[in-house]
């Protein structure tokens, strides 16, 4: 049996890596490296789950680790990389509202916000330190994912942001054991959404949303989405 304290230490280290991966997704301009980062992030998640299993010994956590590994580390990155190949875009150079540097600074603020918020909310509740830590990381990861979603123009990157948000939620959920059934379905569900998303992407998009909007406007095929 490995010392739980040691395992917890490793988990904390992994948390830091998760944050780093989130930062990388925010700042990278290369689509494939963003995807790789996401894969690593998912893997970290699976690892955390596995470590938790080692601590708690609950079989569901192991199952979860496997599921995460299968879907988020293998399946989804495979899908996305296929699409990336299809649309022949390697880099996402356009940013809306926030450039990478301010985004990073802002994400520090987001982590801080999550920390203060959660410390206030959890005040007086007998919760483990690890749980609290996980919650903070989870919430900040979710918020950072959202940051990616609005600051990137390419839909693929947006999707990665969404997936990263989801990782945050999952991270949060890991610490609330006894949610196995739900998390199971959650992943399946998200996969469905993802599949839908990717099909839409594959059908509809060879460039960013804004650009194809522009094209259609020029062709005057549709009127009426905009008020003017």
């Amino acid at each position, binding site marked *: 049996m490995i010392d739980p304290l040691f395992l917890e230490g490793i988990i904390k280290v992994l948390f830091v890596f998760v944050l780093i991966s989130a930062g990388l997704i925010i700042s990278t301009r290369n689509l494939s490296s963003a995807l790789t980062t996401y894969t690593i992030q998912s893997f970290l998640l699976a690892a955390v789950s596995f470590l938790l299993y080692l601590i708690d010994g609950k079989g569901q956590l192991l199952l979860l680790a496997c599921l995460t590994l299968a879907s988020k580390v293998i399946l989804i990155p495979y899908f996305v990389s296929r699409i990336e190949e299809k649309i022949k875009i390697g880099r996402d150079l356009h940013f809306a509202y926030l450039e990478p540097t301010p985004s990073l600074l802002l994400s520090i603020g987001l982590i801080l916000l999550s920390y203060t*918020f959660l410390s*206030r*909310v*959890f*005040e*007086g*509740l*007998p*919760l483990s330190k690890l*749980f609290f830590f996980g919650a903070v990381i*989870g*919430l900040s990861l*979710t918020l950072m994912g*959202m940051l990616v*979603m609005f600051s990137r123009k390419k*839909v693929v990157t*947006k999707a990665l942001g*969404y997936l990263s*948000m*989801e990782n*945050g*939620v999952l991270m*949060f*959920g890991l610490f*609330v054991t*006894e*949610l196995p059934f*739900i998390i199971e*379905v*959650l992943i399946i*569900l998200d996969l*469905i*959404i993802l599949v*839908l*998303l990717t099909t*839409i992407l594959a*059908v*509809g*998009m060879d460039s960013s*949303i804004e650009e*194809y*909007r522009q094209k*259609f406007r020029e062709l005057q*095929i*549709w*009127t*009426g*989405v*905009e*008020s*003017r």
Partner: protein
Amino acid sequence: MIRYYLLVMGIFLALGLIPRSHRLMNALAAGNGLLHLVMSCIALLMLDLPVKLGASLYLDHLNLYVELITALGFSAAAFYARGYTDSLMETGELDPKNLKTFYLAFNLLLVTSTVALFSDNLALFWIFAELTTVCAAMLVAILSARENIDAALKYVFIVSGAMLFAFLGLVFLFTLSEQTLGEGTLNWTVLAVHASEFSPALLLASFTFTFIGFGAKAGVAPFHTWLPDAYARAPSVSAILSGLMQNLGIYGIIRMYALLRESSAAPQASSILIAAGVFSIALASFSMLQQRNLKRLIAFSSVEHMGLLLIGIGVGTPLALFWVLYYMLIHVLVKETLLFSAGILHRQYRSNMRENMKDVFKLQPRAAWCLILGSIAIVGMPPFPLFPAKFFILLESAAISPYLTLAVLFMLILAAASFANFLLKAFSKVTAEEENEKEEHRHITGTSAGTGGAVKENSTGKAAYEKSRLPGQYLVKNGMRVPTIFMLALALALGFYFPDSLKDLLDAIILELGYV
């Protein structure tokens, strides 16, 4: 129990994939809606509510009532869908190959939302609510146009993104129940019993996060942004978006607020709801003023009404909730009338834009009058029943501050003015023929000076006009007309008569939610 339901429905949906004729597919969808309608009616009458069915289904007055509204709205939309989709296919906007997918998603929407409504488990509710998002996004994306995909993407990104936060809220709630009860649970029934024992801070946090998700589903500002685009792009489906999806969100919020009501964090939750409500109303009414697209106008009006509902919920008195529930029903009836009529006009003019509408009273008089009466109803004018509902919700809101009421009223004026402005501008355009008639009329009734020449000119003018006539009148199928008029008539009837049974039902809901 839930497995049986899903099994039956699965078979039903599989059946739906077999037929080839549109008529049969449509009949199945309508039958599906009616089936749910009848079943919920039966459940309401026969069962001794509240009742638990199996491990995870739970029936009480509230979810049956919402289901009733949902099924009603769905059935009407299903009847309407046939003529509309036919027309879409004629013009090539909808690929006939996609028709099956369309009906599949259409039916699935009702099934998923039904499960979501009846599930006792919050997480189950969450998941099925997410599934409705998927179905709805499919419905939005089904048209060949790419902007539909765009709208669907917006819908998915915003609603799902927000729903993730709702999941965080659920995790909070689960932790909370675990801490308090020793064993984590997400069952409404259990939570409702113990809500007062929970830590108010965490309960509030979980409320806030779930509110983000459910608010996005309901179309509360600033999570409403998907709504105008989806409404404008979706075919007749937007009717169920308003009738079904938005009510689902509101349903979740009502449940969550009912949990919080006992806790000491209730005032904060109320403030959040009221602030969001006022913000929604303000944003929507100001946006409406500039709107030239009919469906977007109606969409913003939905946002505005959600705001009013939030205020009603946030006030937290039984009377306010009573009228909120009533309002949900009427809102669906009226909104569907509006959207159906707008759909008919869209088929006529191939556009939702104000500029393209002309000679409305000549080409589509019924749709025009439905739209006018629907607008009158939606801005809360009597004799339509939104009026008393609005009155009582605002009456209760005055408990917080009469100035709040005044501010809300002023924004409602803006909304009403937007409708008036739109209708005035869209419906008042007449083509030259009518102008000529007017001239002629003036000649006849006015002084009898020199009419000969004028008449000749008129006849030549008319001939020239006949050539340059607009694309002919769109023949509205009865399947489209009947639900429109039916919903309006139902709303009007409720304006004159408030059934006792409805009152008892609403009272029962309020009692069950622990109000009073």
